[in-house]
């Protein structure tokens, strides 16, 4: 299993959500993060333009079975792209074990609902 972490623009969130549903990702988690860098975004306060180093972004975190990594990454990549600086990054890392709290199931099984998966097939 792999963990896919994506840092995306807030404005692309709806698009990414849709794209993920389309490739069959049922569940993911996200939270607000602040990106901080040398580059800046312009902001105007009381007529005074200032350059903010702080940029608000969403962090998405999705754990998927190995076979789903590529389609997930691709879905995010396509949906989150504007082509301008600041579109964000995707990081993939390894997950050694996964447990579903409700049932205690572990391993890749914990990641999907059997019933659901079957339905989709």
């Amino acid at each position, binding site marked *: 299993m792999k963990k896919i972490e994506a840092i995306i623009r807030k404005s692309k969130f709806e698009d990414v959500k849709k794209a993920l549903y389309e490739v069959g990702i049922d569940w993911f988690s996200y939270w607000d993060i602040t990106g901080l860098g040398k580059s800046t975004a312009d902001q*105007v306060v*009381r007529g005074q333009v200032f350059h903010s180093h702080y940029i608000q972004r969403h962090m998405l975190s999705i754990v998927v079975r190995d076979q789903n990594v590529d389609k997930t990454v691709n879905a995010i990549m396509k949906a989150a792209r504007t082509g301008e600086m600041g579109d964000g990054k995707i990081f993939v890392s390894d997950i050694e074990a996964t447990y579903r709290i409700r049932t205690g199931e572990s391993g890749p099984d914990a990641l999907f609902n059997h019933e659901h998966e079957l339905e989709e097939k």
Partner: protein
Amino acid sequence: MSFKLMWTTHKDIKMKKLSVAFFAFFTFLSFPLMAQGASAATAVVAPAINTGDTAWMIVATALVLLMTIPGLALFYGGLVRRKNILNVLMQCFIITAVISIEWVACGYSLAFGSSKGVLAPFIGGFHWAFLHGIHINDLSPYFISHSQPSGKFVNGVPVMIGTIPHIVFILFQMMFAVITPALIIGAFAERIKFKGFLIFSLLWALFIYNPVAHWVWSSDGWLAKLGALDFAGGTVVHINAGIAALVMAIMLKKRRDYEGHAIPPHNIPFVAIGAALLWFGWFGFNAGSGLAADGLAASAFLATHIATAAAAFTWAMLDWIIGKKPTLVGVATGAVAGLVAITPAAGFVDVVGAMVIGVMVSLVCFFMVAYVKPRLGYDDTLDAFGVHGMGGILGALLTGLFATPAIQAAYSGAFYGNPHQFVVQLLAVSATIVYSGVGTFILFVIVNKLFGLRATEQQEALGLDESMHGEAAYTTFD
């Protein structure tokens, strides 16, 4: 304008003034119109409280308190960073507490009382300290448009007296004394030590606010005698605080992470609530400054509201044209600038004058805040000088142009045939700038030496909420 209407209009009548009672031919004539159906002219009646005026002034007093807490507190508090909001709120609350006590202890007496000899035009005495000798049913010796014969005569001339309890006047003025040092907070937000701030504010109220209030509003004040017009505190409150703000901003130096860049407000809805409560409360401030519930109050209300609307709209347009998008912080700032600028003029100008003042103040303050401040490079955190100082100066000067006899017959500005008024206004503005500037500088040096004013690097980085008060505004858990 002095709160004592009479002597400025009858300067020619040489008469010995009682410190706080007034001869009032003119008011006397207008009396039947005011008194609610009282047959005052024919029978001798004891002077009585006018319950309508009193009702309005009690409410106005409460409204001015609301301007400081939570109005100004939220307006400023929303503009700073999350780690500093409590410090700003705390400063507003503690100033409210401390200056209120100072005011009954001696402030009122110094500002509105009288003293003898050469000091008389500059500062009052201590005879009213702790409100000594002021009784529950005493009427206000100060009045503007609405008065009544006190029953006393001086040289056969009836002495006039106000229609509200003296205590109401003291309370109303107390709230002005409270908000003025609170306005300065905007200049040094995010980097001042709490202890030094507290001592500075108290001394500033004592040594800067009280005298300037005496100059302009006491019957003995030298600017009042010159005929300077300041309906609700453009000079006494806004220029005074604005200049002090500039001096503090420069002396305290920049915030360590300022680097020429502004910092975005942490909670703009709070800024909006604050601005709205300031707008609401300012009706007490301005429409209350006539000390009566009459046509003058209505007119001051109208002027205040229209100037504010015009200023808010103008700032939005400037934001739109120059800054690309109209911003809420801009509209809120414009509204406050409009309120500031109309303050000295509210009881003297008509609706057109108010509109012009509103438009102009946004043009000037926008220019100050967006262009001048960054160029000059001082760090006036929340533009206390840019908005209150500049807005107050502009308003005081424009009062000298736009004051129209259609509102108060006795007062005209340059555009209504009395260019002299503009000169007087210029003088009053200059005197206040010099006194406030020099006085604040001296207080800064003293307090900084003795107690320290600038927060340490560590305190500033951690945020003043945590470092000064040990509190965090918002928890992130539960």
